[in-house]
C-alpha cells in the first residue's frame, strides 16, 4: 500500500490478546472449550463466588514462556500476578488477574515481510491474564456467559514500529503463524482466540516525536484491523491538515459504518488500581526449566523456509507455501525424506494435496494419505510402474479411503503397459483411425505425434508407457 499522504508518517502499535491452547482455564480446572451451552463450563472460582480462590495453571505459564522464547523475549524468572480493577458485567470479580510490572516475557521481536521488504518489529512485553465472560443481549434483557471467563489469555504488546495497515496485517499474520507453529494457540479468529487493541498516531514526515495516539479497542478480525487503521490514519491526517489537534482518546471501530468513533477521552480513562494479587504466590521459574523449554522449541517458520531452500533445493516461493503451516511443512518433510525426490514431493504436496484439502475444506490433520503412502506413490511413478495420470487416479483413491498405493495398483490392474506388442497394436489402430493426422506428421508436422500418443494413452486407459507409445508410432510412421 502506498501512503495516502507521503508528508505524514503513521506509527502503529498492537496489543494482541491470544487465547492459549490449554486443556483447562488459567485459575481453575474448568475445561477451556468453545461452543458449549452458556454457563456450563464454570465453577466457584471462575464465577468469582465468595470465598473461591485461584490457583495457577502451569501449562499456561509454560506456553506463554514458549511464545516468549519463539519471539526472542527475555524471560522473567520471577514474575507475578496483579489485580486490575474495573467494573464490567462480564467480569466475575470486577477485577481481572493480570500482570502489571513483572510480566513473564520482556522485550522481543518479530520479523515481517511486506512487498518483498523485511522489517523487524520490536515487542515490549508478553504477559498472562484471565479472559472475561461474554455479554449477550436479548430483546428485553441481557445475560452473561462465563464459559470463557478465566480462560488463559496472553497479551503481546508491540512497540509502535508498524507504519502502515499492510505492515499491521503482516505482523498479525506472522504472529499467528509462529503461535500456531509453537502449538501455543489455535489462533482461531472465528472462536475469538485472537483479539487486538490498536494504538495509532500520525506525525509530519521528519518529526522525531510521535504524534498523539488514539486507541481503538476490541478488534477481532485482521481485516477489521486493516480497515480501521486505514480509516483512522486518514482521519488523523485530515485533522492535522485542517490545523486541528488529535485528542488522546479511546475509539471504537464501527464495522458496518466503516469508521471509528470516540468512546472516552483520556480524562475518563480508568484508574485500574493495580496491586499484587495476594491470593497467588509469585511465579518462580528456574533457569534449568527455561533452558529445557528452549531446547524443546520447534524450528521457527522463517528458519524452516530458509532450510527448505538450502536443503531441498526448492524455489523461495515453494518453500514459503510449504512452511506457511507447521503441519504441512512436517508432512512435506516426511514425504521428502521417505522418497528422496524433493522436487516431486514438493510438487505433490503443493498441487494435489493442498488442492484436495482446499476443495473439501479439510485440515491436513484429517488427511488419509500418509506420508509413507505418498512417498510410495512417487516411487511408483519414478520407477515407471504407473503413469502420471494413473498416479493421480491412485491419489484420489488414497485421499478418499487411504491405503497402500502398490496394493491399489495391483488390485485395480493399473500398472503401466510396457508390453511392446500391445503398444504396437494400439499405435497401428491410432494411425488407422486418424489418417490425416498421420499424413500431417509424415509431411513434417512433428507435433501431430503428440495427438497420436494421446490416442494411444486414451485407448489404454492411461496405462500405456507414453515413451514407448511415441517410439512405436514413430517407428510405424517413419518406417
Amino acid at each position, binding site marked *: 500500500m502506498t501512503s495516502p499522504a507521503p508528508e505524514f508518517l503513521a506509527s502503529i502499535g498492537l496489543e494482541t490478546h491470544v487465547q492459549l491452547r490449554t486443556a483447562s482455564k488459567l485459575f481453575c480446572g474448568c475445561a477451556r472449550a468453545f461452543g458449549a451451552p452458556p454457563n456450563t463450563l464454570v465453577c466457584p472460582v471462575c464465577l468469582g*463466588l*465468595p*470465598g473461591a480462590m485461584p490457583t*495457577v495453571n502451569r501449562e499456561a505459564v509454560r506456553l506463554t514462556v514458549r511464545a516468549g522464547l519463539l519471539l526472542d523475549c527475555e524471560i522473567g524468572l520471577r514474575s507475578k500476578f496483579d489485580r486490575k*480493577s474495573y467494573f464490567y*458485567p462480564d467480569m*466475575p470479580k470486577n477485577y481481572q488477574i493480570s500482570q502489571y510490572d513483572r510480566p513473564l516475557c520482556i522485550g522481543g521481536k518479530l520479523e515481517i515481510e511486506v512487498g518483498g521488504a523485511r522489517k523487524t518489529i520490536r515487542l515490549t512485553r508478553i504477559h498472562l491474564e484471565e479472559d472475561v465472560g461474554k455479554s449477550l443481549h436479548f430483546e428485553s434483557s441481557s445475560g452473561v456467559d462465563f464459559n470463557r471467563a478465566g480462560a488463559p489469555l496472553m497479551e503481546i504488546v508491540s512497540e509502535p514500529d508498524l507504519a502502515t495497515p499492510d505492515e499491521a496485517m503482516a505482523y498479525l499474520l506472522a504472529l499467528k503463524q509462529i503461535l500456531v507453529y509453537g502449538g501455543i494457540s489455535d489462533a482461531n479468529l472465528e472462536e475469538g482466540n485472537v483479539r487486538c487493541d490498536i494504538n495509532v498516531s500520525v506525525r509530519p514526515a521528519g518529526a522525531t516525536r510521535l504524534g498523539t495516539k488514539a486507541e481503538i479497542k476490541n478488534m477481532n478480525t485482521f481485516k477489521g484491523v486493516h480497515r480501521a487503521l486505514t480509516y483512522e490514519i486518514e482521519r488523523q491526517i485530515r485533522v492535522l491538515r485542517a490545523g486541528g489537534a488529535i485528542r488522546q482518546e479511546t475509539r471504537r471501530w464501527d464495522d458496518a459504518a466503516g469508521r471509528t468513533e470516540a468512546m472516552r477521552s483520556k480524562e475518563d480513562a480508568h484508574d485500574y*488500581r493495580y496491586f499484587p494479587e495476594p491470593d*497467588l504466590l509469585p511465579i518462580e521459574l528456574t533457569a534449568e526449566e527455561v533452558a529445557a523449554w528452549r531446547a524443546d522449541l520447534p524450528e521457527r517458520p522463517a528458519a524452516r523456509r530458509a532450510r527448505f531452500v538450502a536443503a531441498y533445493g526448492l524455489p523461495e516461493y515453494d518453500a514459503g507455501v510449504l512452511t506457511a503451516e507447521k503441519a504441512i511443512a512436517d508432512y512435506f518433510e516426511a514425504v521428502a525424506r521417505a522418497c528422496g525426490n524433493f522436487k516431486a514431493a514438493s510438487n505433490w504436496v503443493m498441487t494435489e494435496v493442498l488442492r484436495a484439502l482446499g476443495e473439501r475444506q479439510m485440515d491436513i490433520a484429517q488427511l488419509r494419505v500418509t506420508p509413507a503412502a505418498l512417498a510410495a506413490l512417487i516411487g511408483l511413478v519414478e520407477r515407471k510402474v504407473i503413469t502420471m495420470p494413473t498416479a493421480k487416479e491412485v491419489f484420489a483413491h488414497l485421499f478418499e479411503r487411504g491405503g497402500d498405493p502398490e496394493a491399489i495398483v495391483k488390485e485395480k490392474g493399473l500398472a503401466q503397459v510396457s508390453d511392446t506388442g500391445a503398444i504396437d497394436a494400439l499405435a497401428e489402430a491410432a494411425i488407422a483411425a486418424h489418417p490425416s493426422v498421420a499424413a500431417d506428421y509424415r509431411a513434417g508436422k512433428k507435433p501431430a505425434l503428440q495427438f497420436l500418443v494421446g490416442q494411444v494413452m486414451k485407448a489404454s486407459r492411461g496405462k500405456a508407457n507414453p515413451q514407448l507409445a511415441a517410439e512405436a508410432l514413430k517407428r510405424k510412421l517413419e518406417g
Partner: protein
Amino acid sequence: MARLSSFALHELSAKLAAGECSSVEIVNDLLDAIAERNGELHAYLWLNAEEARAAAAEADRRRAAGESPRSPLDGLPVALKDNLSARGQPCGCASRILEGYRAPYDAHVVERLRAAGAILLGRTNMDEFAMGSSTENSAYGPTRNPWDSERVPGGSSGGAAAAVAGGLALAALGSDTGGSIRQPASFCGCVGLKPTYGRVSRYGLVAYASSLDQIGPIARDTRDAARLLGIIAGRDARDSTSLDAAVPDYEAALGERLDGLRLGLPREYFGAGLDPEVERAARAAAEQCRALGAEVFEVELPHTPYAVAAYYLLATAEASANLARFDGVRYGRRVEGEDPTDLYQRTRAAGFGPEVKRRIILGAFALSHGYYDAYYLRAQKVRTLIRRDFEAAFERCDALLAPVAPTPAYRLGEKTDNPLAMYLGDILTIPVNLAGICGLSVPCGFTPGGLPIGLQIIAPALGEERALRVGHAYEQATRWMEKTSHASPSAIRGQR
C-alpha cells in the same frame, strides 16, 4: 446436674465414648440453650437445627453399631462464622448484599469438619464482612456479651465468642484478619487461636483482606482449640498460600510446666492507653508463667506504633478489590438500575453498611494512581519492618506474652461514633497478622466489675504447638473459668 452444653468438646467426646450421653442429647441441649438465650445475645444468625438433629442421630447410630469414631469430634456440634462457605447454607457475612445467597460449595475447613464427623450447628453473627471489632457492624443487629449484655462481645467473630461463652456452642470457627478471633475471645472469656498465615486453607472463607485473613478456632479451653486446629490445619492445593508443612499432634504438646521456655514481654504492648486492670492481669499472668518454670524478660518491638496505620491501608486496599464482586449481577441482593453502572451503584449503596463503605473507599484511595507509592507501598515496607521486629525478638525468646486488647469489653455504642478509637483497639493484635505469625488468646482474670481479660501468647510462624503449650500450662494452673466468683455469664461456670 450440669448441662451437657456446659462442657468442653474433649469432655463430651469422653462422655460419648463412655456411653454417658448421646449426640442427640448434646445437640438438643444446645438448641434448648439457644432457644433460651439467643434472643438476648443474638449470637446466631441462622440455625441448622433439623440437619443437626439428623446428623446427631446418624452419629449415635454409627456409635451404637460399634463403628469407630471418625475423629475426636465425631458427633459433636461446631458453629461457623457467617463468612465460611458450607454447601446449601446461607453465607451472608452479616451483610444485606448477600441476602438470599447460599453457598454451592464447602470451604476447605468445612470439608474437614464434615469428614471428621462434626455437626454444623449454625452460623454466628459478625461485623459485616469481618470489618469491625465489636460485632456492632452486623447488618442484622449486634451480638451482646454474655457477661454483661450491655457490652459488646468484641469482633468481628463476636457471635462465635458469645455463643461459646454463653453456652450456645461448644466451639466455633472464626476468622482473624487483625484480631477478630483473639479479641472477642478475650472479651468473652474464651480461648481463641489465630494460626500462622497459611496454616489453614482459606478456600471458602469470604475474603476481607486476603494477605491477612486466617481461620481459627474459638473454644472453651486450650485442649479444644488444639483439637480443632489439628482437624482444620494442613495443605490445600486450592489455596496457593497454604503451607505444605506437617501438622503436628497439637494435643500431645500440652503439659503442666514451662521449664526452659523463654518468654518475652514486648515493652511497646504495655504502653500508654492500656487499661490498668488489663495491665495488672497480663503482668500477673507473666509471673504465673515464671512460677511454672519459664524465664520471663522484656523485649522490644519498635515498629509497633506504625502497625495500625499500615494495617488499615493494606487491609482496606485488598478489601476494595475483594468486595468488588458484590454487584448484584450474579448473586445476592440486586437493586435494578438504568444500566449496569446504575445497577452497581444502587445495589452497593443499599447492600453495604457504612463501615464497609468507609473501608472500600479508603482502600480504593490508597491504591489510586499517584497515591499507591505513598500509601500501599509504604505500608508494605512497614509490614516488612514489623515482621523483622518479631524475627529479632524470637531470636531471644520462644514466645511473647501480651494483653489481647487495651481494654476489657466496652459498652454498646461507646465507640461506634469514633472509628479511629475503634481501630486503635486492635493495636495489640494487628502486628501478628501483619507478620503472618500465630497468636493465642486465653483468659487471664477479671476486672473488678467481672469482665474477662485475655492474655495473648504470640509465637513464631508454625509455632502453634508452643503457643498452645504455654496457654495450656497457664490455664491448668489458674483455671480462671472455673474459679471465679463473679456473676456467671451462662450455665457454664460453677456447674461442672
